[in-house]
C-alpha cells in the first residue's frame, strides 16, 4: 500500500520531484495537473462551481458526466482556451492563465468537435502540426511516421482532408494529438464519431502511448465502457461539481455497482437535464 502525496501542494512550482520506491511501488507521485476551486460562469450560467482534482504523471484520468456538466469547460481551461473566473489550474506547475505560453508547450488538445484544414492533405496537416513541436527535421519525420501508423490512414494520408470521412478525420486528429508526445494530452471525447473497430484501435493506442511514453492523459467521455477500459482514475462531474472520484474499481465498490454506468446513475440520480 502506498499513499499518493501531491507534492505540488507542498512545493507549488517544484517540478523535479524524486520518485521514491517502497516495496517496488512509488511512494510519492508527481502531479501533472492541479486544479483547485475552479469557478467559471458564462453570464448567468454557472458552468463550474468550484471543482478540484489532481492528475498524476503517466495517469489516464477520465472526466465523466452528463451533457452540460462542465467537462468541456474544464478541458478548455486546462488547454488555455478559457480563463476561470476564480480558482487555480496548474499544468506541471505552470499556471494556465499567467503562464499560458509555457503550458501550451506541454499540452496537446483534441476538442470534441474539431476539424482539420480541408484543403491540405492529411500529410501536410501533420507536417504543419509537427513543426510546432519538433526540434529537428528527423523528429518531424518520426512524428509523422508515427501519426500515419496511429491514424491507420495508409496511402490516404496524401489525400486532401476534405475527401476524408468523419471517422478518418477523427483518427487524423487523434494521431496529431498523440504524435507530439505531450506531457499532457487533453482529449475531449476522443472516439466520438468512430465505429467500434476504430474506437477500439484508438483506445488501445491512447493506453499504449500513456504507458510507453509516460504521457499523462485527461479524457472526457460519455462512453462508460471506454472510461473503464482507459482510465486509471475517474472523476464524476455533475452541474459544475465533482461528485465522486476514484479508480473505476473503487467507485464500483463504493456504490455497490457492477459497472461505471450504474455508479453514474446512482451518483447523478438518473437522467439529468440542464438548460
Amino acid at each position, binding site marked *: 500500500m502506498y499513499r499518493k502525496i501531491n507534492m505540488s501542494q507542498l512545493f507549488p512550482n517544484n517540478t523535479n520531484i524524486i520518485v521514491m520506491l517502497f516495496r517496488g511501488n512509488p511512494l510519492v507521485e508527481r502531479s501533472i495537473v492541479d486544479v483547485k476551486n475552479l469557478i467559471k460562469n*458564462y453570464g448567468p450560467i454557472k458552468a463550474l462551481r468550484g471543482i478540484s482534482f489532481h492528475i498524476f504523471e503517466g495517469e489516464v484520468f477520465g472526466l465523466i458526466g452528463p451533457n452540460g456538466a462542465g467537462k468541456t469547460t474544464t478541458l478548455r481551461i486546462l488547454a488555455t482556451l*478559457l480563463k476561470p473566473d476564480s480558482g487555480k489550474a496548474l499544468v506541471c506547475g505552470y499556471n494556465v492563465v499567467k503562464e499560458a*505560453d509555457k503550458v*501550451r*508547450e506541454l499540452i496537446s*488538445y483534441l476538442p470534441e468537435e474539431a476539424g482539420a484544414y480541408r484543403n491540405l492533405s492529411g500529410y501536410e496537416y501533420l507536417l*504543419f502540426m509537427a513543426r510546432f513541436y*519538433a526540434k529537428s527535421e528527423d523528429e518531424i519525420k518520426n512524428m509523422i511516421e508515427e501519426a500515419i501508423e496511429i491514424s491507420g490512414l495508409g496511402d490516404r494520408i496524401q489525400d486532401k482532408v476534405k475527401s476524408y470521412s468523419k471517422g478518418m478525420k477523427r483518427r487524423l*486528429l487523434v494521431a*496529431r494529438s498523440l504524435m507530439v508526445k505531450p506531457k499532457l494530452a487533453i482529449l475531449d471525447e476522443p472516439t466520438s464519431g468512430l465505429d467500434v473497430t476504430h474506437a477500439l484501435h484508438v483506445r488501445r493506442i491512447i493506453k499504449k502511448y500513456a504507458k510507453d511514453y509516460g504521457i499523462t492523459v485527461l479524457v472526457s467521455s460519455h462512453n462508460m465502457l471506454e472510461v473503464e477500459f482507459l482510465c486509471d482514475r475517474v472523476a464524476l462531474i455533475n452541474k459544475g461539481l465533482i461528485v465522486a472520484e476514484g479508480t473505476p474499481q473503487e467507485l464500483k465498490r463504493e456504490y455497490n455497482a457492477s459497472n461505471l454506468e450504474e455508479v453514474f446513475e446512482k451518483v447523478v440520480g438518473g437522467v439529468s437535464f440542464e438548460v
Partner: protein
Amino acid sequence: MKSKFLNIVIKELKDLLRDPRILVMSVIIPVIMFIGLGAMFRVTVKKGIEEVRRIEVSVVLVDLDKGDYAEAFKKFIKMVNASYVEASSLNEAMKIALVKGVLSVIVIPEGFSKNISNMKPGVLKIYHLISEVSFTATGLRGKVEALVNGFSRTLSQSIALAHGITNLNFIVKPVVSDASIMFRGRSIPLQLWGSLTGSFMATAWIPLIVVIFAASMAATSIGVEKEEKTLEVLLTLPISRFKLALSKFIGTMIIAIIQSIAYVAGYTYYMYSIFKSFESEASGALFSPFQALRWLALSISDLALIGLAIFLTILLGASLGLLLGSFGTDVRSSTSMVQFVAMPAFIIGMILAYMDLSIMPETTRYALALLPFSSPIMSIKSIFINEPILGWVSCLASTCYTIAAIYGMSRMFSSERLLIGRIKTRRKTLLAFRR
C-alpha cells in the same frame, strides 16, 4: 527548420489558395470577366469600325428645293462614292428607306439654295431611322453627318475662293490658344494635363479595391477557422498569440495582394482594350501611369510617399478585416463584417477624389488627411497641390490606425472572446458556446 511563424504563413497560403471558392470568386472571375469583357468590346468595336468603313453611305433624298446648291449636293454625294435614292416626299422617303434598309433620309427644304446665295445658312434636315442600338449604326449616322459637313466645307472653300481668300483655315480660326500647365517649373500642355491627372486619380482607386480584398480575405480566413472548427486547436499550439495573429495577417495579406494583382491586371487589360479599340479614332492622347510619371517628373520622395500610402492602406484593411472578422462565428458572419471597412473606405475615397483641397482651410485639409483610408488619394493630391506634408500626415494617421488595429487583433486573439464569439451588451450576454 522553418520557424513556427513561417509555418503558419505557409499553411495560410496553401489553405486559402487551394480553396476553390476563394480562387474562383476572387481571382479567376475578375480576370476572366475583365479579359472577356475587354476582348468582347475589342472585337465588337473593331468589327463595327470595319463595317462602317466597308459600308457605303446610302441615303434617301427628298429634294424640295430643286435649286443649284441642291444639285451641287447631289453631285457631291456621288463624288465621295456615296449613293442616294430620290423620293418626292418625306413619307415616301421613309417607305423607301424601310424597304431598301437605308438608315438616313435627307430633306433639302425649299429655299435651301436661295438662302446660301443670300449668304444665309442652308439647312439640310436629316432623319435617322433606328434599326438597332449598335456601334455600327452610330458609326453610320456619323458618316452621314460627315457627308453634310464635307459638303459644307467644300462650299466654304469655293465661297472663300470667289472672294479671293486662299487660306480658309486662317479665316475660320484666326486666333488659337496654346495653353499649358506650369507644374513645379515645368510646362505641361493642357490637354496632356487632363489625361495625366485622370490616369493618376484612376490609379488612386486601385488601393481602395485592394483594401476591400485584403479585409474580406482576412475576415474569410478567420471565419473559415471558426466554421471548420480548426481554431480551438490552433489556439492551443505552442506559439504566442501575437505571432499567431501576425502570421495570419501576413498570410492573408499576401493572398490579398495576389488577388489585387489579378484584379488590377484584368482591369488594366479591359481599359487598354477599350482605348486600343478607339486608338485610330481618338484624337486625345492616352497615358499609362508610367508615362504620366515621366511627364510629371515626380521625385523619389513623391513616389515613396505614394507607395507608402498604398502599402499602409492595404495593411490597415487587412488588420481591420482580421479584427472585425474575429467577431463573426462563421465565414458568412465574418465576411459580412467587412462592410464596416468597405463602406467607409469607399465613401472617404469618393469624397476626397472630387473635393477641391486647395480651397479648403488648412485645418480642414489636415482633418481630412487624418481620416482612415485617405492616404492613397491624399498623397497624390498633396503632390499636385505641392503640399506633400499633407500626404505624410495622412500616412502617419494610417500607421496609427494600423497599429491600433493590430493591437486590438492581438488582444482579441488572447481573449476567450475569439473562441466563444461572445458579444456583450448592456442587458444581456449572447452566447455561442457549449459547456
